[in-house]
């Protein structure tokens, strides 16, 4: 009992010691409440790094509104409650804008804290419509493109460019992102004349085997032209391996989440596999500035970007700084108003549009990356023919 009390007092006293990194008094402060440990860390860290690259660039060019930008950080430990605390901590540290964890579920608590404090928040790379007005509030934005756009992009591109007429949909019900891809696909598919969805099935990411699902596909005659797989790692690699092992050679489409070559050793010699990406990490981006960015990133971190999710971090600082510059103030409402005026605002990784209804991209230019012979490369570029309406996104 005595020790407990001591601990409690110690704990309370410790609270006093807490002080965020001292920033210079007239600096603009960006708060980063992202995961520095736990399993989200692998996804947050690269995007955070590229955000820092853009901040350094701005500082080197004389800063923003004539002031330097400094950064305060807090670790969300891949925990929702800890995320809310991290959000408060960076706000206590004087953050004028808060960057939150990549995933909507893990970033939302910090974003809500920012919203409550009247500050703008940006998700590093969340791809759910909720990462914005619909799930946080009018001061919240996401730097990435909606998952639904990825599904719709793959459907339309495969139909137009690869002459795909029969699709099979295989949905991993594990997380919301997967459903977002398939929802986008389902929104697009009916508008593709004489294309048909010949079957559907579901699995869960950590299923030890998808033998039954594979048998269902194999029983189809003829085999589908393309399989729309809506999944993420590690399940996606496992399913792709099992599909190919079972002798299914149909084209496989997925969302951006499986970009990168790090997992391709799982399925040596993989062919006929396509994903949409915002920029190429493979050095063959049509825009040479992207390749230059990759080199700058490699210089800073010791290795090039491992997936396209490195890029939105750069984009978010970029668009936010532009809006601040145009507003001439850090006042949240004024900056939001400027952000909402952006229509196809060019960035290094595709155009960005925000308006008073959607703080996210319901349409976006995507590069199409193909894996053939076990090696990924960019083969095409696609923008869906019309933006996905809000009603379809909210369903």
């Amino acid at each position, binding site marked *: 009992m005595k020790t407990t009390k001591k601990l409690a007092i110690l704990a309370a006293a410790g609270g006093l010691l807490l002080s965020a990194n001292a920033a210079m008094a007239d600096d603009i402060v960006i708060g980063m409440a992202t995961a520095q440990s*736990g399993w989200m860390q*692998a996804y947050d860290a690269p995007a955070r790094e590229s955000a820092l690259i853009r901040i350094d660039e701005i500082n080197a060019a004389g800063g923003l509104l004539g002031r330097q930008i400094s950064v305060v950080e807090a670790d969300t430990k891949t925990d929702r409650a800890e995320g809310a605390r991290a959000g408060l901590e960076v706000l206590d540290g004087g953050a004028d804008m808060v960057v939150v964890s990549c995933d909507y579920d893990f970033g939302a608590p910090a974003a809500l804290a920012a919203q409550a404090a009247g500050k703008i928040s940006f998700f590093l790379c969340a791809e759910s419509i909720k990462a914005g007005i619909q799930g946080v509030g009018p001061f919240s934005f996401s730097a990435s493109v909606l998952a639904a756009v990825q599904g719709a992009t793959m459907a339309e591109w495969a139909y137009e460019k690869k002459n795909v007429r029969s699709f099979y949909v295989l949905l991993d019900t594990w997380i919301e992102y997967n459903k977002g891809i398939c929802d986008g696909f389902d929104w697009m598919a009916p508008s593709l004349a004489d294309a048909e969805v010949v079957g559907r099935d579901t699995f869960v990411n*950590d299923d*030890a085997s998808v*033998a039954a699902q594979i*048998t269902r596909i194999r029983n189809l005659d003829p085999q589908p032209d393309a399989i729309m797989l809506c999944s993420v*790692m590690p399940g996606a690699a496992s399913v792709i*391996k099992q599909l190919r092992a079972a002798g299914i050679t149909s084209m496989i489409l997925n969302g951006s989440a499986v970009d*990168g070559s*790090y997992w391709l050793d799982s399925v040596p010699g993989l062919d006929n596999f396509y994903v949409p990406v915002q920029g190429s990490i493979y050095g063959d981006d049509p825009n040479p500035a992207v390749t230059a960015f990759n080199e700058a990133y490699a210089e800073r971190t010791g290795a090039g970007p491992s997936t396209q999710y490195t890029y939105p971090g750069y984009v978010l600082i970029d668009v936010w700084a532009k809006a601040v510059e145009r507003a001439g103030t850090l006042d949240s409402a004024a900056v939001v108003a400027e952000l909402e005026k952006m229509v196809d605002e060019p960035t290094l990784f595709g155009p960005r549009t925000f308006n008073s209804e959607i703080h996210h991209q319901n349409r976006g230019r995507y590069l199409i990356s193909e894996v053939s012979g076990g090696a990924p490369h960019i083969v095409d570029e696609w923008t869906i023919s019309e933006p996905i309406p809000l009603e379809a996104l909210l369903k």
Partner: protein
Amino acid sequence: MTAVLQILFDALAVGSIYALGALGIALIFGVMRLVNFAHGDYIAFCVFAMLVPSTDVVAIVLIGKLPAILLIPIILLIGAVISVLSEMLVFRHLRNANPATMMICSFALGFVIQHVLLMFYSSRPKAINLWSNLSLPVEIFGARIPLLQLLTIIITFVILVALMWFLKRTRYGLEMRAAAEDFTMARMLGVRANRVIMTAFAVSGLLAASIGLILATQTGVADIRMGMPIMLVAFVATVIGGLGSLPGAVICGLLIGAASVLLQVFLPLDARPFRDAFLYSAVILCLLWRPDGIFAPRSAKQRV
């Protein structure tokens, strides 16, 4: 006919992994009433042992590149060693603790293993390519199944037979069965407790390692959480099989795998995401039907 055979193979392929897991859990439970929640983490540990510790995204495969004849014994050994080590470092000191305490300790141990892996390898799943020609499909009476799944099924049965032989025909096995029946009595009759328990842990670790090898080959991915779902199903299978009954655990592991495949095949699309809800409801019904387990040995009857 072919369709039925295909379903049977699919069911066996899923079920045999669960069966191997259940066997590992049941062995330990038999000798010391410990539900070892760290078992799933042994599986992940064995898989990650094939890679060079690094938080880089691209995995560097080290001992995973060795020829099978070396790789398999090394990984099995690693499984046995980590399992025995956890016995010596943790569970040995808890012999007289109640089952809940031991269970929580095993969970804490698993938590530690998981976070050590996280620290050394980062959380991003890593690619491992083992014996890719095992992924080629073979055809049996018109049903096509990847060679690896066939091997998994065969390996499971070989391990089962070997284990049965070990338990029935060797002195260690006899001691282990005696200890599983009545530990105190067995000790009084000259069974050396530590040796029996260590053997059980070693065998259980071997089983975890073999699941790790099978999973790594099948999925091509090393993920820190990969052992968890198998461990949970194995745990359930052990209980509905009848705690202390090894064949019961194995059969129920197979049954759960088969049930999950059958549900996947026969449920309508809208209900398929709820597959696991049906599966676990069936588990509850099964428990109500036979609270002591389907194959409960007479000695396992529990009070309260």
